[in-house]
């Protein structure tokens, strides 16, 4: 049985029209997804609606948006989990990114930071059976939901942010040939691990069960340890200072 759900969709066109919400009534089954609903609005009600999507199975990260105020990957967010028959869904773009139009944000600031950290996309897989040289993609899908949920990102656009810091922790923990000295410097900064207020919102919304806040805490512990070591002229921070 299809439900009737009202989608209230954030609309904004570059510059001209002030931002507003458009209501769309959608016939949708409870086990369909929010993205199914949005695609249907585009296909049958309003061809001007713009939104990001690609893989539809929680691997590319592009369909991230806010659903009733919470960051969701719309392709794996089932209608029955976020509303009821006759209910309303407020759909907005991610926060803390420049809005391009409607639900489309410009994710390039996050990719600049990810690029700075330089985490490879590929890691060695944990083999299910006999160890072999399998590899697989990193769990982080760079969807930007942690960046959107982070209250500190709202206060400072200089903050490196949870996604890039979690990547820094991954790279330092498992360098795979990457020179990590610059990553230490990037992490040990007032706009980096020390800016986090431990709200833990990032981990709450992560669709890959990542734990960016935990990664930031782990980086802090490593940095404190390195600082103590450097008092005795040892460790990576001391070597950096020495040239």
């Amino acid at each position, binding site marked *: 049985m299809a439900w009737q759900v009202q989608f209230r969709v954030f609309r904004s066109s570059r510059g001209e029209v002030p931002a507003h919400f458009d209501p769309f009534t959608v016939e949708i089954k409870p086990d369909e997804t929010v993205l199914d609903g949005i695609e249907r609005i585009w296909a049958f009600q309003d061809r001007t609606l713009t939104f990001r999507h690609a893989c539809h199975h929680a691997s590319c990260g592009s369909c991230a948006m806010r659903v009733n105020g919470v960051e969701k990957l719309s392709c794996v967010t089932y209608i029955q989990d976020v509303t009821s028959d006759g209910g309303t869904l407020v759909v907005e773009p991610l926060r803390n990114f420049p809005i391009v139009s409607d639900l489309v944000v410009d994710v390039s600031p996050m990719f600049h930071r990810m690029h700075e950290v330089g985490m490879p996309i590929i890691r060695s897989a944990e083999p299910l059976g006999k160890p072999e040289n399998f590899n*697989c993609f990193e769990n982080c899908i760079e969807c930007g939901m942690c960046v959107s949920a982070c209250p500190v990102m709202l206060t400072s656009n200089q903050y490196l942010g949870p996604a890039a810091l979690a990547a820094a922790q991954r790279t330092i923990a498992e360098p795979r040939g990457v020179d990590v000295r610059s990553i230490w410097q990037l992490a040990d900064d007032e706009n980096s691990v020390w800016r986090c207020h431990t709200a833990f919102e990032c981990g709450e919304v992560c669709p890959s069960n990542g734990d960016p806040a935990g990664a930031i805490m782990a980086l802090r512990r490593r940095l404190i340890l390195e600082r103590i070591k450097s008092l005795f002229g040892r460790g990576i921070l001391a070597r950096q200072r020495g040239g």
Partner: protein
Amino acid sequence: MTKPVAIVIGGGSTGAATAHDLALRGLKVILVERGEIASGTTGRCHCLLHSGGRYCVKDQEAGIECIEENIMLRKIMPDGLELNDGLFIAITDSDMDYKDKFIAGCEACHIPWEELTPQQALAIEPNLNPNLKAAIRVPDGVFEALRFCLSFLATAKKNGAEIHPYIEVLDLLSTGQGAIKGVHVQDRTSGRVYDIEGDIVISATGPWAGDIAAMAGASVPIQPTPGVMVSMNQRVVNLVVNRLNKAADGDIIVPQRQTSIIGTTSWPVDHADYIPVPEDHIQMMLEKGAELVPGIRQARMRGVFAVARPLIASAGQADGRELSRTFECFDHAKRDGVEGFVTITGGKATTARAMAEKTADVVCRKLGLDAPCRTRDTVLVSYREYYI
């Protein structure tokens, strides 16, 4: 001398690779895509880096294309692929009857293969159906569709290409003398409507190729043929697992990141814009998937998706499974008497580079340019540089 301008329509794997190839050959490339990059067929593909094994018996042309490109992609996209190999496993007697044909097909297509005993296969993949009778290992792999496209586009941008998502082609611009001289577009982020002129227009719009060709009064024999895929919330295997038999519904599980994607089905539709998922297909995927990996029943369903493959139709072949997965570049000057307009369609994401090479060859010949293809050994930059 000013560079010739090539306008590429479509930001899926074919358009992305074509932009990259043409930019490397020194053309000024402008790519327009009506949605997000990879928001059409490529984005919702199975993410399988084909070894060619799936085609090596019935569609050897596609099988050979796949293995050649598979080997090349390992060189040019080293950081963007899960290289886990694939297994073709036999469970029934009918599967066993197919084994010799499969091995002969691999040999004919030059696909490296290795037979494993059931014990060896289960040692690598303990979750496989324990009743398997045979297993053949081939160099399948896995990519991530959005980043696959972004790698080509990032490199194209480094070589001067302009990439414009959210620009929809409303019409093709005609010279009035039987030639196309550009595109009439709308910026969907602002509503602004304007023209882009160029020396050649290339439609890389997959199952939408017929729509764009119609704007020029031309046609392409494309049959949009969707397939349903079901992604699970666990990675139940490390290798790609295929059924050792001729291609059928639900005969493959592709692991990716933390998920396993079961696919797929095949049915023809009239138009590719909106594909409703037939509910019985989902149940069938789960049942067929469990024949390969019984443990899939313990996983939860995470997402369901369907998208149209752009299969090239030929007379008398109505069933999508019978249509070749090879690609074709249509020069509409020859086909429909329309100059300045080329369509590339068909194919697989795995063969996107080869599709681009063939298209760029046609484009260069039409424009009188002597510029050899350089994509075979040009290592692509990181997909992240698309945003930088």
